[in-house]
């Protein structure tokens, strides 16, 4: 057993750290929304940031060189994930393009589609959004009803999608549509690539429970999509979408995020009081904090185990749902503890002059509640573990 990195890997890490150190100003400028031209244009600034990261070799690391990737080792990818998360750098804006669209195109797209889109995804030239969920089709995704009629050499799409991140700024969209109403629900779905500038598309921001608008609703009114934008076969979209849903990551970068969260919580404990005494002297608080530390350690080592398997060439299985389920629970518990420690100040908004840490904890609490819903509810994750890991009979029939 060995968690150490090779000398070569450590050298790679050092090079990356040097790059990060050398680009602090760029990162700061990006976070202020200043783009390469020096204009205040937050979206463009984020596109520029992704392009710089890509050009430095830190985006598309696992992709084939033929499509602009770097074919790096898995260890190098882990190093990059860890270091970027630790350094609190701006994220890549085109997350959906990078983690959902590109792997799908690499696996299922035709040569034209790969050539047209992959490089642009890497460089942040096109920002992608995802049109899967619908108001009536949440956990039961396959019951979606947005319909596409085939007319000559194009699809005509009408319907509504919801929970679409980056909707208002997206250039393109991966869309699931129903092309055969009479087939069993999984056999009448087609996977399309849609230009968001097409006529008939309306994007409406969707406010969430915390008051933010990270998501949007997207309405399609007889939107025309060329037949060449279909991925895979007609009516064959479900299996393609499913393969992307399975495309889970080792989760180690998620652990770094939790660790950063935990550090903030520790600072709160250090400064806070319980029962009129320093919270750090309260056995109950310490017990709880220790439990979170344990759970983050557990997730980290779980990540290492998954990574070890991947290094041996095994595909990460549905075990990844264990990490998803566990970390959303942990995230919620930590957010709640923070509010408890904040005491009577716990219930203030970020607009209040008295709020702690500029509302980070309240915002974090509302965010944490979304983690057990988005990307598969905790109930669905339980089903996945039960059915696909434990191989229990299905509790949900279609």
């Amino acid at each position: 057993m060995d968690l150490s990195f090779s000398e070569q890997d450590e050298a790679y890490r050092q090079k990356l750290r040097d790059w990060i150190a050398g680009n602090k100003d760029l990162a700061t400028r990006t976070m202020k929304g200043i783009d390469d031209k020096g204009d205040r244009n937050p979206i463009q600034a984020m596109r520029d940031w992704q392009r710089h990261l890509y050009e430095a070799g830190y985006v598309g690391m696992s992709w084939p060189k033929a499509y602009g990737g770097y074919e790096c080792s898995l260890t190098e990818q882990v190093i990059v994930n860890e270091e970027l998360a630790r350094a609190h750098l701006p994220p890549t804006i085109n997350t959906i393009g990078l983690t959902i669209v590109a792997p799908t195109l690499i696996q299922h797209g035709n040569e034209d589609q790969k050539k047209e889109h992959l490089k642009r995804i890497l460089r942040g030239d096109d920002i992608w959004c995802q049109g899967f969920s619908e108001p009536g089709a949440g956990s039961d995704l396959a019951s979606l009803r947005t319909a596409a009629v085939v007319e000559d050499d194009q699809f005509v799409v009408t319907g509504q999608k919801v929970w679409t991140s980056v909707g208002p700024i997206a250039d393109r969209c991966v869309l699931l549509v129903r092309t055969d109403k009479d087939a069993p629900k999984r056999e009448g779905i087609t996977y399309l690539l849609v230009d968001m500038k097409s006529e008939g598309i309306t994007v409406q921001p969707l406010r969430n429970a915390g008051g933010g608008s990270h998501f949007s609703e997207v309405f399609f009114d007889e939107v025309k999509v060329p037949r060449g934008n279909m991925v895979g076969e007609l009516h064959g979209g479900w299996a393609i979408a499913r393969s992307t849903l399975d495309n889970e990551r080792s989760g180690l970068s998620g652990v770094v995020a939790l660790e950063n969260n935990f550090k903030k919580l520790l600072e709160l404990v250090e400064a806070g009081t319980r029962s009129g005494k320093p919270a750090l002297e309260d056995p109950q608080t310490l017990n709880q904090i220790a439990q979170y530390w344990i759970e983050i350690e557990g997730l980290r080592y779980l990540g290492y185990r998954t990574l070890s398997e991947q290094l041996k060439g095994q595909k990460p299985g549905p075990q990844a749902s264990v990490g998803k389920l566990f970390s959303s629970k942990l995230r919620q518990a930590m957010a709640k503890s923070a509010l408890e420690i904040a005491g009577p100040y716990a219930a203030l908004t970020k607009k209040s002059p008295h709020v702690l840490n500029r509302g980070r904890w309240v915002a974090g609490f509302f965010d944490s509640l979304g983690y057990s819903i988005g990307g598969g509810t905790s109930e669905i994750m339980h089903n996945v573990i039960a059915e696909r890991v434990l191989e229990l009979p299905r509790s949900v029939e279609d």
Partner: protein
Amino acid sequence: MEFQFSSDQLAIRDAVAKFLSEEWDLSERRRALDDGPVKVSDALWQQVVDMGWIGIAVSEDKGGSGLELLTSAMLVEEAAQVLFPSRLCSALASAYALDQCGGDSMPKLLGSHMTGQHFVSLAMDEANGDYGPENNSTRATMSGDEGVISGQKILVPDADVADHFLVASRLGDKGVLIKVAADAPGLTITPMERIDAQCVSELELKDVAFSTEDILGDADEAEAVLQRTYEFWTTLISADLLGVTTTALQMTNAYAKERHQFNRPIGSFQAVSHRLADVKMDEEVGRSLLYGACLALQERPDESSPQVSAAKAWLSDAATRATEAALQLHGGIGYTWELDVHLLLRQARSNAVYLGDADYHRKRIGAYLAEQLKSSAAGVSN
């Protein structure tokens, strides 16, 4: 023996529910999250006053209806079910405090508070890292019949409409409630924004003057008046938490019957139905504890702390669980701004840490049990 609502109480409850459903729109709370604290319009408040709600527990000789304390809790629970603002709670709690005072000025103030001419609010919570009046650090000092108060109070409700505050303060080795005018020199009021959009403020008191007659209760009663008022107000907050729990359960239960996924109503999945059953259990136990607290307050107000704390501790947890379950079981739609679930959750979380969180109230009970053991009392309860 009767341990439930009487038919009179049920009639009041139905009337209250009907009135609120006609006159109050809970989506007002959503708007207030953007546009500042939620308010009851003057006209609506006058209706509330005219129906005699504020004096419902006030003794008859002081112009109230003299109904048992359970009726007040019932009123608050109904109001909370539609997220009517907390102003009702503070109005009832300050009426209760004033009702315990003799003399001339307090009954007079109570009278005008009940008719809506004045509004008296209360200031108890502090930012000193602990809860409960026994841990207050606001200090009053006196020389002769005159004195000054200094300190800081937080989460004081309804400062937008209050012309007086009853401020919990230490005076010598005692805790007391002292009446302070909203425009008293030395008093600074700063709004605080609570996540449920209720109007709460910080009061900064710098040598605010008062005289003997501003202290609630006679010398030998004043400490009891503070403590009882704290217990009563806390119980009303528990009733508020129960109301929120009930609405969260009802909303989610209805949704679970109606929403279909995988060709079945989601309420037929045990992941949903068993969690709702747990919420139902939470609610039933919470309701029972609330009645117990009301009874204890009614029959032995100065020994009611354990029952009051039991209700507050349980309902702080239960309302949190119920509203989080509501959000989770509604799925994506529950996480939207437009659905009322987050409004319930915001109120539950705000009140869960108001006037003592669950841990504080369990600590009070723990101290009571340890005391019981020390005095080697054989009986645990009763």
